[in-house]
């Protein structure tokens, strides 16, 4: 190798660039990363400290388990809102899981290419619709239909199974059932899109391994595709769940906003975001602090779920083991 050639390669880079270029880049990226982490931590800390007045007044567990929320007597307990949030979200997830998985499997494995991409666009459109639109649709289309069904169930129960009536609640359409249904429709695109992507990423070698053993199409899906894609499918499920937990507008429009326990299947209920949106305008003092403490609790639940999601994905995904 001629030394002359070696020198000529370096001519275009100034010594300053060589000394600083990489460090500047790393430094800029590091600052931006820390900024994101910092915003999250500061937000959590500020919510906690703004809610600390309420948490101190009722005690952390007292606030969490208290079932009275009464601005007149200035007593605040978070339990109805926590319960309502968990019930609506988990109910929606239970309803949405299998349809979402079915859509994903169909779009990747069965649909012809044009239909598969049409489905993808439809899912993305559904995912990007503002939630107030879902709320409007829920209130004016879904609620009347739900009420009609609820009425017939209610009158049947009144005649044949009166012991069910306290469980069912009043068939007014607005309430838990409608909220769960609207939420389920809203989160299907999230769960389905992620499931679809992870199913599409299953290597051809895995499919062929199953086909080579004489598997039918459905057996290939069961033996090779779903086990391989389970990490991504579960990640989508948990993302959908966090989305449902925080959903505000669509839920507040159809849930009826009653914090009176016990909740019933048909009757009105409430969630943490509904409480915040309904009361933040007039709240002051201890009530405002209690709303912020509610926000802090939702922050903690979402954070814990995201950690759980990361852990499950790590445990369940097969990529790391290959």
């Amino acid at each position, binding site marked *: 190798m001629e030394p002359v050639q070696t020198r000529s390669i370096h001519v275009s880079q100034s010594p300053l660039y060589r000394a600083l270029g990489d460090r500047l880049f790393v430094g800029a990226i590091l600052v931006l990363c820390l900024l994101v982490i910092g915003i999250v931590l500061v937000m959590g800390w500020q919510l906690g400290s703004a809610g600390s007045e309420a948490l101190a007044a009722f005690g952390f567990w007292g606030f969490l388990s208290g079932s009275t929320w009464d601005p007149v007597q200035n007593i605040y307990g978070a339990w109805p809102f926590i319960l309502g949030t968990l019930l609506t979200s988990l109910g929606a997830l239970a309803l949405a899981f299998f349809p979402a998985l079915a859509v994903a499997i169909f779009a990747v494995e069965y649909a012809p290419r044009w239909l598969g991409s049409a489905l993808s666009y439809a899912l993305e459109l559904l995912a990007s619709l503002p939630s107030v639109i879902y709320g409007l649709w829920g209130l004016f289309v879904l609620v009347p239909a739900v009420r009609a069904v609820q009425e017939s169930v209610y009158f049947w129960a009144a005649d044949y199974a009166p012991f069910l009536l306290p469980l069912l609640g009043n068939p007014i359409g607005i309430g838990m059932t409608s909220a769960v249904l609207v939420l389920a429709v809203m989160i299907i695109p999230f769960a389905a899109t992620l499931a679809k992507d992870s199913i599409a990423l299953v290597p051809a070698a895995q499919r062929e391994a199953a086909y080579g053993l004489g598997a039918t199409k459905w057996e290939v899906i069961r033996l090779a595709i779903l086990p391989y894609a389970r990490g991504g499918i579960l990640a989508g499920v948990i993302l959908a769940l966090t989305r449902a937990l925080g959903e505000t507008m669509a839920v507040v429009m159809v849930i009826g906003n009653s914090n009176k326990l016990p909740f019933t299947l048909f009757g009105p209920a409430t969630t943490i975001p509904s409480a915040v949106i309904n009361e933040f305008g007039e709240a002051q003092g201890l009530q405002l602090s209690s709303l912020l403490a509610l926000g802090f609790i939702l922050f903690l639940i979402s954070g814990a779920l995201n950690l759980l999601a990361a852990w499950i994905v790590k445990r369940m995904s*097969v990529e790391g083991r290959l």
Partner: protein
Amino acid sequence: MNEQRPLTVPPKLEAARAGGLEADLKPRMEAQGLTVYYGKKVGVGNVSMPIYANRVTALIGPSGCGKTTFLRALNRMHDLTPVARVEGKALLDGQDIYAPGVDPVDVRRRIGMVFQKPNPFPTLTIYDNVIAGLKLLGVRRKNVLDEAVERSLQQAALWDEVKDRLRAPGMSLSGGQQQRLCIARALAVQPEVLLMDEPTSALDPISTQSIEDLMSELKKHVTVVIVTHNMQQAARVSDFTGYFLTGELVEFGPTSQVFTMPKDPRTEAYITGRFG
């Protein structure tokens, strides 16, 4: 399943017999004018050759010559590629696997396949990987499954290495062990033919050796077709060799003849290392 249907003696078999080969030679499969199209392009054209029962047949040739394409036509794997189309016949025990009414799923149960890269099912244990095919067939009895696991792993020369950890994940094995696990998985359903698509190309020399050593044992139980880009491997493990070039079968014959006295000058150019 193993009953022999009457079969016309293919011209190449007559030639082989005339050349002084063993008289017990029976074709298990036979390709008759097999052509695979990808769209309008011919992947491999008009291939006719026998595949003899309980022998190892090697398919050799340079990259892109069509040997893998031909192999995948032998158990209807091209059905899974929408643009691929197969013409001609591939007989298994005298019956065309492309005949109308033949279920490709049945074909693949009788003609197993081992792939280029080891592809065990990553979420399953060693045991469950081996019985995956049997489970598809509805076998549930534990003693039957246990026996099949031991027999298949023995035949794949993996039993001694894994018999104490059958419940460990299949992915915990080394690359060479994983490939033998895949061979055991294919053998568990007792196929008549085992197609191997460059089964050692992703393995180190020692693992390669263990798979090659396996071949002479395997052919006692099953008819083997192996695609390899490694001519020495073909010479070491096979009884018959087919040489492919640019989508065409140039020469087929007993391995010793193809490697020592090739009839076609193109075969000679390839095996003497003039190209490829």
